[in-house]
């Protein structure tokens, strides 16, 4: 009797160990899959995006230089120049950031530090709801409200617009869409500021407002900058809403804000229903350029942040 008990206990221990090894490898496998995803995305899109420029491309090798620096994009004539589109995207993204950033940071500061508690919670909930509204709904709102509004304003100045679809519409739309992102991250950053810093400032005789603007904002600087970077990335990558109000101009870059325009994302979505061959493949190339632009802008802003940090320190 005793010998059988000892045997089954040993077996149980062995089973438990093997089971542990098995589950550990399962979990490890999942973790590997998850962490490799980003690499898969970059590699596959890079590969597919570069194929039109490779020597033996099925539909006729494209000139990389003409693609990157071209100022015309015509589906019907198979002319694909993404240069002006990049400029348009940069203009719209940065303009939206310049518009949204101050409002976002001030709103964050107000809701955390200045407003009474209930108002602060109300603002935070508003931001949360705004952040969860899907892009298509923003697009419908833009086409129905912003675009006609621009049309009326333009007519008041005697400027011709294509029904209101314009660079200005894109910038306003993007500013509205990235506002919640930057605000919510700024709120988190401001909340994380050490209370002692504020108290020290007040003890030295500064008013609350001085403390808020000079101490709290500086202390939350890195978080706020992170919010700005995320917001900018979102502005560059926003697709469905932007394509509803852009207009898709064939050449550029668009410097007249009342003129129709075209961004990288609107290009990737335009005429998707009837594409074949080169026209379909070239969208991957545009996607690749988009990823590079987002990466480069992230790095530049990070560099800028470090420079500003050094100045103040």
């Amino acid at each position: 009797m005793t010998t059988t008990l000892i045997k089954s206990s040993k077996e149980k221990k062995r089973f438990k160990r093997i089971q542990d090894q098995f589950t550990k490898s399962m979990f490890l496998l999942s973790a590997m899959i998850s962490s490799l995803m980003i690499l898969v995305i970059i590699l596959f899109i890079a590969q597919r995006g570069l194929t039109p420029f490779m020597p033996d491309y099925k539909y006729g090798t494209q000139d990389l230089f003409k693609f990157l620096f071209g100022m015309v994009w015509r589906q019907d004539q198979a002319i694909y120049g993404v240069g002006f589109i990049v400029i348009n995207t940069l203009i719209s993204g940065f303009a939206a950031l310049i518009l949204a950033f101050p409002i976002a940071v001030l709103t964050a500061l107000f809701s955390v530090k200045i407003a009474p508690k209930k108002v602060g919670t109300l603002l935070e909930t508003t931001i949360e709801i705004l952040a969860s509204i899907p892009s298509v709904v923003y697009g419908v709102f833009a086409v129905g409200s912003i675009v006609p509004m621009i049309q009326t304003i333009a007519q008041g100045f005697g400027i011709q617009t294509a029904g209101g679809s314009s660079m200005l519409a894109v910038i306003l739309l993007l500013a509205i869409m990235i506002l919640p992102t930057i605000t919510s991250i700024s709120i988190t950053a401001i909340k994380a500021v050490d209370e002692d810093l504020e108290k020290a400032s007040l003890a030295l005789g500064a008013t609350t407002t001085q403390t808020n603007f000079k101490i709290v904002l500086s202390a939350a600087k890195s978080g706020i900058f992170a919010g700005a970077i995320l917001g900018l990335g979102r502005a560059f990558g926003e697709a469905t809403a932007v394509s509803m109000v852009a207009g898709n101009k064939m050449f550029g870059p668009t410097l007249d804000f009342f003129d129709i325009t075209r961004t990288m994302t609107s290009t990737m979505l335009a005429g998707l229903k009837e594409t074949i061959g080169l026209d379909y493949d070239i969208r991957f190339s545009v996607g690749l350029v988009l990823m590079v632009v987002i990466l480069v802008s992230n790095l530049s802003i990070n560099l800028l942040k470090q420079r500003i940090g050094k100045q103040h320190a």
Partner: protein
Amino acid sequence: MRKRKLSDILLNSITAISSSITIVLLASIFIFVFKEGLGALSLGMFTQPYWSENYYVSIPQSEGEYVLDTELDEDVYYSSKHGIALRDDLDPQHEAIIVIDYIHPDSSFNALTNKTSGPLEGTEIIINEGMIIRKISYLGTNGVVRSAGPVVKQDAKETVETLEKSDVLSEAFIQSQGGGILGSMIATLYLILISLIIALPIGIMTAIYLNEYAKFHKMAPFIRSSIELLTGVPSIIYGLMGVLVLFPITSAFGANGTSILLGGMTLAVILLPTIIRTTEESLKVVPQNFREASFSLGANQTQTIFKIVLPSALPGILTATILGIGRIIGESAALIYTMGTFINDDPNLLHGATSLAVQIWSIMNGEQPNFALASAISIIILAMVLIMNISVKTISRKLFKRW
């Protein structure tokens, strides 16, 4: 001192004004969407297909008088000779249409046969209340076949009067109204199922690995950053990835081109970072004592994880699921590439379809953007998103209460 107070007041007012912009924004969006869409919103939307069907039918001989036994509304006109009631209405493009309001159970309109030449000629056609009359042909007084309905610019009242004067109706051209979201709702449901079935296990297991096994391992930060990088990728890029990387997998299942399966798999990748992050947070909250107690009782790590840690982390996992569903409902760019933009009234896993959000995109991209319908669907989406947000909030509060 005065200057300081003045500048303080100025700064504070600028801040307050900036903050009110967010509230004004939210209010404008909701007001716009409700103003445009509330009229088009109806319970029927949930059960009707999007595309309108055309029916060219022949009407059998009517059996005399059909007595009205139910109450009809004010502006509904009833033809007792043929057992059908019509009313005026406006279609989404604000054109006048005549809608069938009521069909008497014994009416000959219940036994229509298909008159369109082809394989289905002669088969039975069932029409319902809510369908549109385009034209009804009847035998006139001098034996000539004449037309009644919108085609001769008659409204509901005139059409019914014309029909009452004639004994024999020969044929009719009827349309179903369409504009429904049944197909997209089913497709969205499929999408949610597929993406959660794929993303939840992988995401939860990854979170478990990061928190239970490799917490202080030197590889852990590296794995975490590569997952965090995924959050900065625009969704349209995920669409491109889905078409490139996941398409071969769906082809193996038999899908040719865009499909719900492809869309679901792509969405699973999009959901992954959120699920991992939220699950990891909820795993961290589980007290270490629980695990130690379990070990001291002789359990191995597997048993501890599945029987002790995971159940305690369930509210967090639920939160992650709800956040995921909210993301799925709102996603559009990635699905446009992987699921297509053709509104499918009979969605099938291996064929393209539209989710609710993509249906809005498809409607807005057509020649005549149907604002009313797009806004109505937006209302539905907003309602769903709000419900998700509230659920997440209540669950998080319960989570805090426990510890």
